[in-house]
């Protein structure tokens, strides 16, 4: 296709993170990064990189092995052991190193080629067991290549480009952010995919779910990414560029306006105080917390903080991280959620669960891995001596999980006392309410905890039995489903009766359309990604609590999602809360 034929293409997708950017495309081709047959200049450097990748892979596997050996089952443990032995295999290592030196090809390519030979032998077998073994070898091969890739990345990815990819993992997203990516454009993914959430956190515009962006867009194409309307223009003409430059100017004006709002302490027009807190996913967001004047951090997603490091970092590494956050936010409070791995999050282990969302995740995983859990609890306790940290448990479904955590926490406190290490004796414990079971159990759980936080993404998913990452049923993931509205109402009422503090920290809290409803349902603390704070504050500042309450009462009587959504849209319009639509209306 010539350039002319590819002028003025408009692609429509999902608006995943707001903002507008004009810039050049960088096509991130995973296959190329995998094992391209690249010639290299410095073979000794390549051999060194290969050895480092082996070491890193070994450390990762060793950590996995240290976890709940009994849980994994003997067979899987053996496979991990065999995988570690492969990383020490003298014949394999020597062959690969010799080939890197002689052929002068990228180590990832040699690793792929050499290990694939063994896999092909295994695949030839009639024995199903042998063919499965080929998959295990695939795992180890991918692990080495992934670790080789990490290093290569930093030098290969150009700065300040619009990243175009089929899909991005959370760690890809963070790495690109470090290379000052301007925007993200992907074929797959939806509004609540972790990449979308991260892009919003990092204030990088994103359009996802474009289906064929990687076919339509070629490296270095000029792109306009409209993260408000979910639109991508490929090689646009001058008029469109000019139009978007005007939009960008307007956007700057809005941002200036928001900066002023964010400095104020916010109440509704009739004087009800609503706290707007921040969710912290990655360290880079701390600066937005400060600049947007977050009234605390309602959720630190620790599994995300450390995904750049190796899996399950040491107590010391964690301690330093938590201390930094506690000090930067002091005297405001910071709620640290303990590792929420499993489900679709991070890489707990290569455990293959047929239904990970109903499987080994959150508190279940932690209580099965007490040594690692203790490391984290101790790290939080040690960082708590100024008294502004709280601990939150994810995925709680039963009282026992809270009680077991409390006894573990007491043990940690005892150890610290014995070592004369200071910590906050009165550190508060709370839970995420994201499973219907926990929502029902609030009055009972209240005897042992001080606060709850509504995790709406998972709550909606479990309440409606919809996997939000499954595109086939993603439409059924309805945040304004009447049962969602009623459940939130039930949770807030019961928490208040039981004397618990309630915060909402899911994506719903950051949806400006939902803000009046949430305030009307009685939520007085909203925790959103740091960059969304000013937008939410602006809504609250222009909202009357009495009106919001009346809206909530109407919504509680609605029969369908569309009915609730229509009520909210009508309310927004009637009260002049649709700020952005005035500025960005299509002309």
């Amino acid at each position, binding site marked *: 296709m010539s350039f002319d034929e590819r002028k003025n293409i408009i692609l429509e997708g999902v608006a995943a993170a707001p903002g507008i950017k004009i810039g050049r495309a960088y096509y991130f081709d995973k296959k190329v990064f995998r094992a391209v047959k690249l010639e290299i200049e410095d073979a000794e450097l390549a051999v060194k990189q290969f050895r480092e990748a082996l070491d890193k892979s070994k450390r990762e596997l060793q950590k996995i092995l240290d976890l709940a050996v009994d849980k994994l089952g003997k067979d899987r443990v053996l496979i991990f052991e065999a995988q570690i032995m492969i990383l020490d295999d*003298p*014949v394999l290592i020597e062959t690969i190193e010799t080939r890197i030196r002689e052929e002068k090809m990228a180590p990832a390519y040699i690793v792929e080629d050499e290990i694939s030979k063994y896999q092909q*032998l295994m695949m030839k077998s009639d024995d199903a067991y042998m063919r499965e073994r080929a998959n295990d070898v695939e795992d180890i091969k991918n692990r080495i290549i992934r670790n080789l890739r990490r290093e290569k990345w930093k030098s290969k990815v150009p700065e300040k480009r619009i990243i175009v990819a089929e899909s991005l993992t959370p760690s890809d997203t963070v790495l690109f952010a470090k290379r000052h990516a301007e925007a993200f454009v992907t074929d797959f993914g939806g509004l609540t995919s972790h990449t979308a959430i991260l892009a919003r956190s990092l204030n990088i515009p994103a359009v996802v779910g474009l289906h064929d962006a990687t076919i339509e867009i070629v490296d270095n194409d000029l792109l306009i990414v409209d993260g408000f309307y979910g639109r991508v223009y490929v090689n646009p003409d001058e008029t469109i560029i000019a139009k978007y430059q005007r939009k960008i100017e307007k956007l700057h004006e809005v941002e200036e306006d928001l900066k002023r709002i964010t400095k104020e302490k916010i109440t509704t027009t009739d004087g009800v105080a609503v706290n707007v807190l921040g969710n912290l996913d990655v360290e880079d967001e701390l600066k937005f917390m400060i600049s947007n004047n977050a009234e605390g951090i309602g959720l630190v997603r620790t599994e995300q903080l450390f995904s750049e490091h190796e899996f399950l970092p040491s107590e010391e590494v964690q301690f330093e991280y938590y201390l930094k956050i506690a000090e930067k936010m002091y005297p405001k409070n910071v709620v640290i959620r303990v590792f929420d791995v499993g489900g679709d999050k991070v890489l707990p282990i290569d455990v293959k669960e047929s239904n990970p969302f109903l499987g080994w995740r959150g508190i279940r995983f932690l209580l099965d891995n007490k040594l690692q859990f203790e490391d984290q609890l101790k790290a939080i306790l040690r960082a708590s001596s100024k008294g502004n940290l709280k601990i939150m448990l994810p995925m709680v479904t039963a009282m026992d999980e809270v009680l077991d955590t409390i006894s573990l926490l007491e043990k940690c406190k005892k150890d610290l006392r014995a070592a004369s290490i200071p910590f906050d004796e009165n550190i508060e414990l709370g839970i995420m309410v994201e499973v219907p079971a926990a929502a029902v159990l609030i009055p009972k759980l209240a005897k042992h905890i001080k606060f709850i936080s509504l995790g709406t993404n998972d709550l909606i998913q479990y309440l409606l039995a919809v996997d939000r990452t499954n595109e086939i049923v993603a439409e059924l993931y309805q945040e304004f489903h009447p049962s969602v509205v009623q459940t939130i109402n039930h949770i807030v009422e019961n928490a208040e009766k039981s004397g618990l503090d309630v915060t909402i920290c899911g994506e719903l809290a950051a949806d400006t359309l939902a803000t009046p409803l949430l305030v009307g349902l009685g939520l007085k603390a909203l925790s959103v990604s740091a960059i969304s704070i000013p937008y939410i504050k602006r809504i609250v500042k222009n909202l009357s609590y009495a009106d919001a309450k009346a809206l909530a009462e109407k919504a509680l009587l609605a029969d369908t999602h569309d009915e609730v959504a229509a009520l909210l849209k009508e309310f927004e319009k009637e009260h002049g809360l649709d700020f952005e639509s005035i500025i960005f209306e299509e002309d």
Partner: protein
Amino acid sequence: MITKEVKIINDAGLHTRPAATIVKLASKFKSDFFINRDGMKINGKSIIGVMTLAAEKGATLTLTFDGEDEEEAARTIVDYFNRGFDEL
């Protein structure tokens, strides 16, 4: 050099666990150790190599040991095969 024939006698055959054990045992010795089957010659100190040997119950393998401690190496490893990888 010592050459020995061994037969796989356990039900599960030469699967991951015995493959790992064989490599661990072989690595303790200085002697070279190869496993031959159907014209394939696998270095017995390479786990990924031994894992490619789809040796089911009843299969016959030829083991060769070559080096200063070949006798002890042969005795240890042949014994492990004859014990059915401790799975009988």
